[in-house]
């Protein structure tokens, strides 16, 4: 194989278009590009002039998977702009609902979309016979996460119970107890999935990069925290995110990219794991140990493993949150928010990484300016740098093996559901 062009062209009708372009001449890599041809969606402009109470329901629609995370990032920012402090009950319920989204999204990705790669299968269907019990465990975990989101958020995605200030509906103690029972049962399913992933052969790849995630002194940060980097000892308040995250564009891609201390950085499950490992719940630590994941891990393929670890953590932490809520008792909270001018920055760890919303309000509480930093955009440059580093390892293999290897690397980032499913369409030129 002296010359080869690979163009993994991915067409999607709604969102998440991405292409891998590779040129090799005389066994030398001449070009490696990660192209995003997505059209801008203008959500930042769309919310201008809108009242803060409407914003959360509009921006939830940015993502069909991370609608809950977008909602919370926006709510956090808007509450800060309005000078409102949410109650402990509200924060606990938000953390619980965010765990639901994390479990749902991660299970969908590692279970349905990434797992078949490790068995050379086009999708999960062939695994139904060879790994029946594990596939059933994945289906049960996915269903449980959807039901958690239904119960707390009012529906599976795009929650309707979450508003600036608190909740429009609280779960009953009986509903929480039933959810707790289901979560406890799910621990066996988590262990079955961990055992399966511990048996997989993860591609041997290492490229040192920077990892960025939220960090808190007392918990594995998902809902809030300060910006932390594996390249720094200190953390940065969210309000100063523009000092840390430097966005840029490249001519062959319509999506923004980002860098911080190096040419690129990674956000997502592996970044969170690398930064917050010590704050994992025991089940998460057990899962990491069983699958051989240790911080700092520089293998992007291990992002799938970090997702499994986070599901284990989120299941156990959800039980802890429910216990806390039941012990303190649920009560309706009346909140009054007086509109005022101000600016607030919110940050949440969604399944694919750090998500930031930034709003400036006028005296009537209407948005005059907004900015959003999306996880997948932060990962684009790191994906490309990884592709450049990984491709030489693959030279000498067949076209099909090279293509699959590159696709698996991109898929490991879980850039978005549509990307993951459509990378399987390959065009050779």
């Amino acid at each position, binding site marked *: 194989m002296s010359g080869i062009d690979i163009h993994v062209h991915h067409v999607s009708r709604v969102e998440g278009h991405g292409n891998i372009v590779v040129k090799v001449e005389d066994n030398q890599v001449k070009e490696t590009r990660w192209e995003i041809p997505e059209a801008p969606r203008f959500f930042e402009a769309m919310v201008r002039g809108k009242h803060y109470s409407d914003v959360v329901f509009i921006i939830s629609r940015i993502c069909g998977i991370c609608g809950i995370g977008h909602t919370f990032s926006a709510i956090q920012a808007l509450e800060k702009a309005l000078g409102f402090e949410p109650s402990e009950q509200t924060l606990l319920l938000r953390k619980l609902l965010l765990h639901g989204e994390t479990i749902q999204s991660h299970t969908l990705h590692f279970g349905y979309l990434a797992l078949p790669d490790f068995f050379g299968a086009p999708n999960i269907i062939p695994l139904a016979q060879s790994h029946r019990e594990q*596939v059933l465990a994945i289906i049960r975990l996915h269903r449980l996460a959807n039901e958690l989101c239904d119960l707390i958020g009012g529906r599976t995605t795009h929650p309707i119970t979450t508003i600036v200030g608190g909740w429009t509906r609280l779960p009953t103690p009986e509903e929480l107890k039933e959810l707790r029972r289901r979560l406890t049962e799910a621990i066996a399913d988590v262990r079955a999935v961990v055992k399966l992933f511990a048996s997989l052969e993860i591609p041997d790849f290492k490229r040192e990069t920077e990892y960025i995630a939220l960090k808190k002194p007392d918990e594995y940060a998902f809902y809030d925290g300060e910006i932390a980097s594996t390249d720094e000892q200190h953390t940065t308040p969210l309000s100063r995110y523009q000092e840390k995250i430097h966005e840029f564009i490249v001519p062959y891609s319509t999506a923004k990219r980002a860098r911080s201390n190096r040419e690129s950085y990674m956000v997502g499950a592996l970044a969170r794991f690398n930064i917050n490992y010590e704050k994992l719940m025991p089940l998460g630590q057990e899962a990491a140990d069983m699958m051989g994941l240790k911080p700092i891990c520089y293998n992007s393929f291990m992002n799938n493993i970090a997702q499994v670890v986070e599901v284990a953590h989120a299941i156990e932490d959800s039980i802890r949150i429910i216990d806390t809520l039941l012990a303190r008792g649920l009560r309706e909270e009346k909140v009054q928010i007086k509109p005022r001018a101000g600016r607030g920055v919110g940050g949440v760890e969604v399944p694919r990484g750090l998500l930031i919303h930034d709003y400036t309000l006028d005296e009537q509480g209407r948005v005059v300016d907004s900015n959003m930093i999306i996880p997948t955009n932060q990962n684009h440059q790191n994906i490309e740098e990884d592709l450049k580093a990984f491709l030489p390892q693959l030279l000498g293999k067949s076209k099909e093996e090279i293509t699959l290897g590159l696709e698996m690397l991109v898929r490991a980032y879980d850039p978005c559901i549509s990307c993951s499913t459509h990378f399987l369409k390959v065009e050779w030129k």
Partner: protein
Amino acid sequence: MKGKTLLLGLGNDFMGDDAVGAAVAKIIEKRGLPPTVDLLEGSIDGFTLLGLMPKYEKVIVVDAADMGLEPGEWRVFDAKPELLGKNFRTLTHFFSLGEALELAERLGLKLPPIKIYAIQPKFIGFTGKLRLSGSVAKAARAVIASLQSELC
């Protein structure tokens, strides 16, 4: 979940005749359904359906399907993976309903009887708003009448 029957109207409002299942469900919901029927409409992936369907005694799906018929022709049949294939229109990115049924069959999962109201689309592509072709809108009205006599 409150009812015993799940009525699923599948489709994307912005994608021409792909929306027909969702449009049917929206109209039926406005006209009222008995409390034994739960209704869901929109783009729902096969994975989610796999978790949802076993909770019901009966599932009825309304969706656009390319059956090689004239636009607006519609058929009612019992769901089987080999009948639906992998391209039965449910959602762009996820598993289709056909694939979900195939997975369920291979896993030996017990699903309730699933009846499909399938409508042949004329145009599927971005329209930006709910806009059905004339023949498909006419079929939608007939399907609504049939569903109402079946459910109400």
